[in-house]
């Protein structure tokens, strides 16, 4: 087991270096630098003199070729230094840390709801398979699964923020907090954030809900055809116990690996949804940094996503071994 773990970690480290190297190469070779882009967007009249530009480039380490700069970045990383954001002039870790919570608030709530709802739905559709109610539920879920989240987000916004404006059902269009947030009481603050969360969480949840419950169902369908289920039924085990105890338990392996694979999505956020709802999370930070060519922040985010993805896969493989005694890595 330890041997396997060490091997996996070493392979992971190689992948990590490859990914960061490639991403660094890609972003440094995109047209425009943070200096030229930032200045012209902010104020076209501000022309930087060539000498100033040279000096600033030197300060930011942009005068060196990208592969040299990459190894400098890697060296700093070894000392735990991710660098400073070009735009916000704060350490990258601080910039990312302030954006983690809003994203986590959305994704954790949504993931909780997904697990809470998808297991019963998946089991229901398995048991009632072929009946009218199952067909209706499955089709609805399937349609939701195919409905792109940004389309749904826009339609919900048109409905709740524009058409129902001024009624009791009106929901806010932008941001995480209302304008009068600072004057609100403790309860008012929580209520305000919750109100702003409703639409984003809905959009985050409905798609994965369909995916997860279908996942449960398709695994269950394979399991309930097994001989041991027939045996359990034959010896008189009740239907609830058969489904929950004999069948669902045996679908836990793929279900648990799915948890491992959803780990990165907890923190990565969604570029497009956060952009639509102007939610100050990771996805929006990523998109903004990409537009502003904020290399240190982009690299910090890439590093984080990659580590999370690799860890998620590792976790999935380990949970596999924990849940299923037939699998061993020794």
């Amino acid at each position, binding site marked *: 087991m330890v041997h396997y773990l060490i091997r996996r970690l070493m*392979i992971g480290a*190689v*992948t990590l270096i*490859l*990914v960061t190297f*490639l*991403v660094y190469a*890609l*972003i440094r*070779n*995109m*047209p425009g630098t943070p200096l030229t882009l930032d200045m012209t967007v902010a104020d076209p009249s501000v022309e930087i003199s060539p000498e100033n530009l040279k000096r600033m480039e030197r300060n930011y380490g942009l005068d060196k070729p990208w592969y040299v700069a990459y190894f400098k970045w890697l060296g700093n990383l070894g000392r735990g230094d991710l660098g400073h954001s070009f735009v916000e002039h704060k350490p990258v870790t601080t910039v990312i840390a302030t954006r983690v919570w809003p994203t986590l608030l959305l994704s954790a709530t949504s993931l909780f709801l997904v697990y809470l709802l998808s297991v019963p739905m998946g089991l229901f559709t398995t048991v009632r398979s072929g009946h009218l109610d199952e067909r209706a539920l499955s089709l609805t879920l*399937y*349609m939701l*699964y*195919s*409905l*792109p989240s*940004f*389309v749904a987000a*826009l*339609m919900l*916004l*048109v409905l709740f*923020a*524009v*058409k129902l404006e001024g009624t009791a059902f009106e929901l806010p*269009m932008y941001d995480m907090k209302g304008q009068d947030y600072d004057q609100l009481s403790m309860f008012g603050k929580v209520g305000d954030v919750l109100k702003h969360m409703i639409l984003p969480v809905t959009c985050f949840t409905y798609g994965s809900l369909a995916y997860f419950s279908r996942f449960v169902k398709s695994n269950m*369908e*394979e399991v309930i*055809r097994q001989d041991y289920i027939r045996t359990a039924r034959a010896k008189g085990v009740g239907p609830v116990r058969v489904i929950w105890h004999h069948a669902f338990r045996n679908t836990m392996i793929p279900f648990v690996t799915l948890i491992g694979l959803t780990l990165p999505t907890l923190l990565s956020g969604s*570029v*497009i949804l956060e*952009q*639509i709802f102007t939610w100050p999370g990771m996805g929006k930070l*990523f*998109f903004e940094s*990409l537009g502003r060519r904020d290399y240190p922040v*982009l690299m910090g*985010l*890439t590093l984080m*996503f*990659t580590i999370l*993805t*690799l860890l998620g896969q590792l976790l999935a493989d380990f949970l596999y071994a924990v849940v299923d005694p037939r699998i061993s890595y020794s």
Partner: protein
Amino acid sequence: MTQSNPSSKPPSQASDATASRGFWAEAWVRFRRRKLGMTSLCFVGLLAVIAILSPAIAGTKPIVCRYKGSLYFPAMAYFNSRWENPIFYRDKFYKRYPEHLKEKDPDSWAIYPLVFQDPYRRVKEGEWEGQPGNPTGADGVPNRHNWFGTTQAGVDVFAQMVHGTKIALLIGFISTGIAAVIGIIVGALAGYFQGWIDILLSRLIEVVMCIPTLILILALMAIVEDPKIWHIMAVLGATGWTGIARLTRGEFLKHKQAEFVTGARALGTGRVRIMWRHILPNALAPVLVPIAFGIAAAILMESALSFLGFGAPPPNPSWGTTLNAGRTSNLQNWWLILFPGIAIFLTVLAYNLIGEAVQASTDPRLREGTK
């Protein structure tokens, strides 16, 4: 698909299959029984028809016209601007056919598209008899002349969407085709050769999966100076093959151990032939499923990219571009969101349902009657 039915296989394999249907024929029979899958297939067929006939459905250029003694097909310019006969430039038509045709050649005649609206520009007052100029801004609500409303600038949304069908279909097929080719080759090599080739290719798959898609796409798009819709397709194909590769690898790992491969090898069959003729036909059915879902994902990705402002360059009306126009109009113009949104949704749904039906009709474990 039909190439790989038993009749084209070596006679030794086909001899006992003459009485029963082959795998793909059997799968097609089962596919046809699935109503949702068939409906979706018909829907995609309908989209293809719309895409091919788009210049005849909505446009301001005649499908066919007789001008100064010869026949022209100006509507073909909607497929490729070079296909518009230069005579209309020389005679200074300024893209306004109805009035200039009559004025410059009284004997001319022309057949116009069903809807006189242009996907690229606003139709002004007096261009077409009895049709007012397109409304702009918030006045562009769907009406008799603009079925799906108009954009902020007064361009007809129906025309935009009809012409956007082309993009949606091409994106799906071409980018997924590219992804399938890369994915199957990489997966086949990794699964068949194993050893260090597998380790290298698996790392490659992992690296491509780990790089944030948006960075990869935007960086690749930035390489080309003047991005065209073809570049988006190529980039989407070059980034979307990892799932297919992993599945193919798994299938090849599984089939490599099978007796028929050992048998083929004992007969002295070459590696490429074993991979291509013996393992791939057996591995293809499961791989078709992520390909069908990949088409849906590609369409989704293109509309998401257009929506974020990185999609098809402006004159190309893609569904995502219209949707983005709806967002930038501060959500007041609901028709800019509703119609393209429904179109994207239905297309993605159709491809997902097709993928589903393919899965159900090719997976022997899920066959009906084996309960």
